[in-house]
């Protein structure tokens, strides 16, 4: 009896629960999530079924098979007897190399141009403005072709190479640099360098603390130089100069020995960093212009020199404006590096292209390629977000 009597109230309870906004929100989101998950499952399942039905191989077994092809630039040991998985890694490292070097060069160049555009010197400011407007409005692929086919291709043949100071050569095949050969005992020199660097860092930290406490400024430059350069030099001489240089020598079709830098890498680096620098320059300019003039005036009123007020007052504040858009440029540069395919640099896309064609497993290879770019981008953005929060104004 009691149970029967309670039933209508139960229903009303359930109804009331359904009408509660929080519950409905959660329910909608759960439903949407379930629908998405189902759609994803269904697409994957459908693709797999179709591949099977059309008799197209699928799965990731091919990664452990022998690749059978060579790559022109390998940062790790690799030959045509290595696996497809290793080839992936080789391509990935080539992409990371060009992205890291490109980001470094673009940042330095971008900051210089950005500040130059704000210069009180009319000529410098206008030159910087022309650079920005010219470079950022020409498609990147064209700029790559320009550097690769118009500039670097006009370099002389190996036999007529430009000889650079220090035993280096530059020709149409690339830049040939003397390579250091480390002999046993060089570990001591490296250790001395590490010790010197640590000592300098400690000294710098101590000097700062001291200045904060007493206001007394201590010059650290000379002791720092002594620790970073002097100490390793002494150890180097004492250990009997455990370093030799392998110079490039002309032989056969080309130079042998030394370190060869592919012209494709040089062209790609030039193209990517010059292009991205024009965007970074504008971001830097916006950052500096975004700081109210009163800040500079206040710094000068406190007696700070022009350089100090820039370094201690303007730049830390400008950095907060600059970092978020800078992150986008870094991501752009990394993704743009896939244009390497057009000029023969063996980047990730180029190597996976070969893998795709040899294995015919388009779905897997493309998925892996997309996954890797996504991971690189997310990691870059994670780091920059951390850096941004580190630099952000701490509100008290």
């Amino acid at each position, binding site marked *: 009896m009691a149970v029967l009597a309670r039933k209508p109230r139960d229903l009303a309870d359930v109804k009331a629960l359904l009408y509660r906004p929080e519950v409905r929100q959660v329910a*909608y989101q759960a439903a949407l999530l379930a629908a998405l998950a*189902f759609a994803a499952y269904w697409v994957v399942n459908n693709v797999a079924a179709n591949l099977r039905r059309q008799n197209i191989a699928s799965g990731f077994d091919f990664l452990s098979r022998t690749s059978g092809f060579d790559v022109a630039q390998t940062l790790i040991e690799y030959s*045509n007897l290595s696996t497809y998985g290793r080839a992936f890694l080789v391509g990935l490292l080539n992409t990371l190399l060009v992205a890291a070097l490109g980001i470094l060069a673009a940042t330095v160049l971008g900051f210089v141009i950005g500040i130059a555009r704000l210069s009180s010197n009319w000529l410098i400011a206008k030159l910087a403005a022309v650079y920005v407007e010219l470079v950022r409005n020409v498609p990147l692929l064209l700029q790559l072709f320009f550097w690769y086919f118009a500039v670097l291709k006009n370099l002389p043949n190996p036999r007529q190479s430009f000889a650079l100071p220090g035993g280096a050569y530059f020709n*149409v095949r690339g830049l040939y640099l003397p390579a250091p050969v480390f002999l046993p005992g060089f570990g001591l020199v490296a250790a001395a360098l590490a010790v010197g660097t640590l000592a300098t860092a400690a000294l710098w930290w101590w000097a700062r603390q001291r200045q904060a406490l007493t206001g007394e400024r201590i010059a650290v430059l000379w002791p720092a130089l002594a620790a970073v350069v002097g100490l390793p030099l002494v150890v180097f001489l004492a250990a009997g100069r455990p370093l030799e240089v392998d110079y490039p020598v002309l032989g056969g*079709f080309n130079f042998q020995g030394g370190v060869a830098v592919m012209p*494709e890498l040089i062209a790609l680096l030039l193209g990517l960093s010059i292009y991205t620098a024009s965007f970074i320059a504008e971001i830097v300019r916006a950052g500096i212009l975004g700081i109210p003039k009163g800040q500079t005036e206040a710094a000068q009123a406190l007696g700070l020199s022009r350089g100090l007020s820039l370094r201690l007052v303007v730049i830390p504040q400008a950095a907060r404006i600059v970092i978020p858009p800078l992150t986008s440029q870094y991501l752009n540069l990394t993704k743009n590096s896939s244009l390497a395919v057009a000029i023969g640099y*063996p980047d990730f896309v180029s190597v996976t292209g070969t893998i795709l*064609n040899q*294995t*015919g497993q388009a779905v897997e290879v493309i998925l892996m390629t997309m996954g890797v770019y996504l991971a690189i981008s997310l990691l870059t953005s994670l780091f920059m977000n951390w850096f941004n929060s580190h630099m952000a104004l701490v509100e008290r």
Partner: protein
Amino acid sequence: MTHFARRAALAAVVLAGLAGLTGAASAQTKTLDTVKQRGQLVCGVNVGLPGFGAADDKGVWSGLDVDYCKAIAAAVLGDAGKVRYVPTTTKERFTALQSGEIDVLNRNTTWTISRDSSLGLSFAGVNYYDGQGFMVKKAAGVKSGKELGGATICVQTGTTTELNLADFFRINNLQYKPLVFEKMDEALRAYQANRCDAFTTDASQLYAVRLLTSNPDEHIVLPDIISKEPLGPAVRQGDSQWFTIVRWVHFALLNAEELNVTQANVDEMLNSTHPDVKRLLGKEGDFGKGLGLDNDWAYRAVKQVGNYGEVFERNVGSGSRLKIDRGLNGLWTKGGLQYAPPIR
């Protein structure tokens, strides 16, 4: 509640749409019916390889592979002009065929076991027996591929070429550097700019590519042939009727040459008393029906395109700028490898 209902309806529509999309792709339709219904053959060809598949400045396609597209269209649709050409790169070509974007791939594509067994493709025959070779600058003084130790070699990506190259240098214990480009144009430009010592691809293409250089006389094709490259038309697996049609159009062109049936004399040949000629041209027997076509299929192909020998000479042989010897591509009766099963 209406709010929820609207959302649910939206979700249902999206899901149904997805289902429809992929469902259509998975439905097994007969290529012959699709082609007839469309009234046009969609043929995957090279983006631009003189002699095999290339469009001129007016957008008119020509080449050995292109003539195979025309012959199939003539046999199936009755008109060699009813072809839509889809230029494909080495990387795209198999996906284009697998996904149904093209009906047949006539794009100097090498027949290998992996392509037969794991790409879901079937090769209908060999319309050109090729092999990989090298082109070098005369000035380099190289006479053989074995002298290429330490050389930098320009390659176009997405071909069996990279694999053969690695094998060749591994077998001969030589060092080399491959420089891989996405497009042939760029690979050739880099080679011409002296970035590479040699350019490698199938020998047939080397002759074509040599003509594309600014001064063909400065370049020579080395005698070394480092691989077997049987090139031929490919179709999707699982449609044996379409496969049979493509294969027998090829055989019909070969048989026509063997029987001396040419584009010019095919109409006279209709009155021939030779039983093989009568069977080829549909005057005897009922062979077209088995293919799902009429009995004039081979007549139309020869009438509109010519026999294999004519197609060869016109596009890559003596009638072309390439001037490639028949060599392995001669008929079996003349010391070549081209041999077609009989029509009977």
